[in-house]
């Protein structure tokens, strides 16, 4: 039975809008943390992804993820150019909304994921190479992994992996790809010699606030209906963000003073961690997921610093490790009492689910890290990943875009 429900459709359209807003929000979250000579460049790395990935998604991205399944690995070409994706529902994915609404909602996820990675290589990446990288990455990493986890017949979906809104598909892929890319491109000039001070923390606060709001669409919309699961996802999302922000504040306070940049980072990490779990766990479980996510990412940043790695804005620590914890936590806290389309986790008598989540995490981490590493190395050889030393010193706003942010 596939009849369109107006309430469901309206909610998914609103949710799509909210998720689209997250990419410019991310641009400001990141933009505040760089030096002022690179603010336009940093904003643009996210903004241009909205253009680039929207085109990719319509032309072939959607089809590679949600087209007819090929061996569990990749979608077919039957939805190229969104052909056949229209007003009537696709029962396999969302039986009560137009198929095109589902495709549009999913497009926003395909956009924000490569934008997340940009935090790894801000202030030094060559723009031309970045464009090629993002297109290759979306095609070679995001599209397959999204198919594995969300596509009908995808291997990880067949295995029983739970990923409500993209803890694995979005955050683990972005986080570990960021790590791989940072290792190839190398540190910014002067990294470690003196601190790179964030030039506009209010931008970051603005960005984080809008991310929090947008995340209601990200997770709530992933119910693909205006129902109890959507409401649960919105409440768990908010709860995890709140708990993680509080715990991060305490950690930061213990080490010095309650840093505002720390508090907002904590909230974002909580949002990341609850993403795979939002529609499968109770609000109280979300509280625990958020509270535990904060120290995991906090000390992951410390670890990254100890290795002297310039993964500049800590995409790995926040999204990679937050997403990993969230995916595993889903295997602990999931309960069919919240969502009978889900599964029970370890704490609800089903240890197998935790193992499934663990396997999923390991597979996706290795795949995302490995493919990104390879792509980055090849691009480095043939195009060059970074600008010249003098271009980097001048700043990418001038050297790559010929503009200055503040006259």
């Amino acid at each position, binding site marked *: 039975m596939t009849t369109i429900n107006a309430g469901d459709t309206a909610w998914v359209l609103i949710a799509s809008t909210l998720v689209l807003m997250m990419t410019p929000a991310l641009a400001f979250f990141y933009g505040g943390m760089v030096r002022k000579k690179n603010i336009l460049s940093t904003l643009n790395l996210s903004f241009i992804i909205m253009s680039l990935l929207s085109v990719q998604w319509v032309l072939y991205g959607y089809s590679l993820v949600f087209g007819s399944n090929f061996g569990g690995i990749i979608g077919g070409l039957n939805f190229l150019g969104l052909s056949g994706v229209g007003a009537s529902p696709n029962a396999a994915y969302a039986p009560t909304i137009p198929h095109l609404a589902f495709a549009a909602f999913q497009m926003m996820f395909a956009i924000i994921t490569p934008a997340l990675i940009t935090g790894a290589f801000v202030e030094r990446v060559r723009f031309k190479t970045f464009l090629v990288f993002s297109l290759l990455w979306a095609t070679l990493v995001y599209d397959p992994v999204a198919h594995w986890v969300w596509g009908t017949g995808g291997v990880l979906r067949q295995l029983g992996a739970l990923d409500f809104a993209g803890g694995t598909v979005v955050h683990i892929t972005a986080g570990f790809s960021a790590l791989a890319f940072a290792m190839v491109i190398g540190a910014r000039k002067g990294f470690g010699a003196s601190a790179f*001070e964030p030039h506009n923390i209010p931008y970051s606060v603005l960005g984080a606030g809008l991310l929090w709001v947008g995340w209601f669409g990200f997770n709530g919309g992933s119910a693909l209906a205006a129902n109890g699961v959507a409401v649960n996802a919105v409440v768990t999302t908010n709860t995890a963000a709140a708990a993680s922000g509080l715990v991060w504040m305490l950690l*930061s306070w213990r*080490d010095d003073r*309650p840093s505002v*940049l*720390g508090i907002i980072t904590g909230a974002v990490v909580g949002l990341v961690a609850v993403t795979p779990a939002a529609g499968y766990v109770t609000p109280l479980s979300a509280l625990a997921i958020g509270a535990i996510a904060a120290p995991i990412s*906090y*000390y992951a940043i*410390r670890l990254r610093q100890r290795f002297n790695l310039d993964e500049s804005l800590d995409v790995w620590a926040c999204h990679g490790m937050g997403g990993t914890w969230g995916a595993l936590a889903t295997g602990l806290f999931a309960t069919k009492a919240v969502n009978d389309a889900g599964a029970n986790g370890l704490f609800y008598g089903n240890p197998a689910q935790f193992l499934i989540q663990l396997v999923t995490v390991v597979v996706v981490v290795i795949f995302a890290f490995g493919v990104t590493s390879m792509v980055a190395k090849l691009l480095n050889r043939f195009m060059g990943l970074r600008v010249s030393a003098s271009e980097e010193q001048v700043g990418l706003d001038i050297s790559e875009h010929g503009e200055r942010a503040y006259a």
Partner: protein
Amino acid sequence: MAKKIEAVIREEKLNDVKEALRQIGIVGLNVTEVRGHGRQGGICLAGRTGTYQVDLLPKVQVNIVLSDHNVERTIEAIQQAAQTGVQGDGIIFIYPVEDVIRIRTGERGRQALTYMGDIDTRQPATQAAPK
């Protein structure tokens, strides 16, 4: 004949210093925002995790050109108003000035440095400037 005082002070002390200068009758001054460090070498700021060191701190530089015989009293006023006793109070530089020209009138030297009701044209010095 004239000296220039450059007093690099804490941002938050600017109003106190301005008031102290007004009280002794220093009328002409300008202010620039500067960044720098001295013996203190900077401060620690809170980051995402833990702290990081910042070496250049924002300061305010008060620039005054005045007659030689007013220099000591002015220094004293600035020092009293700007001092907290904690590192980072700043520093005062004094330079010789070759000449001064007031653009509106073309007056030069000592004349260009004299204002109605300033330190040299009034007594007693501690009263507020007359209208």
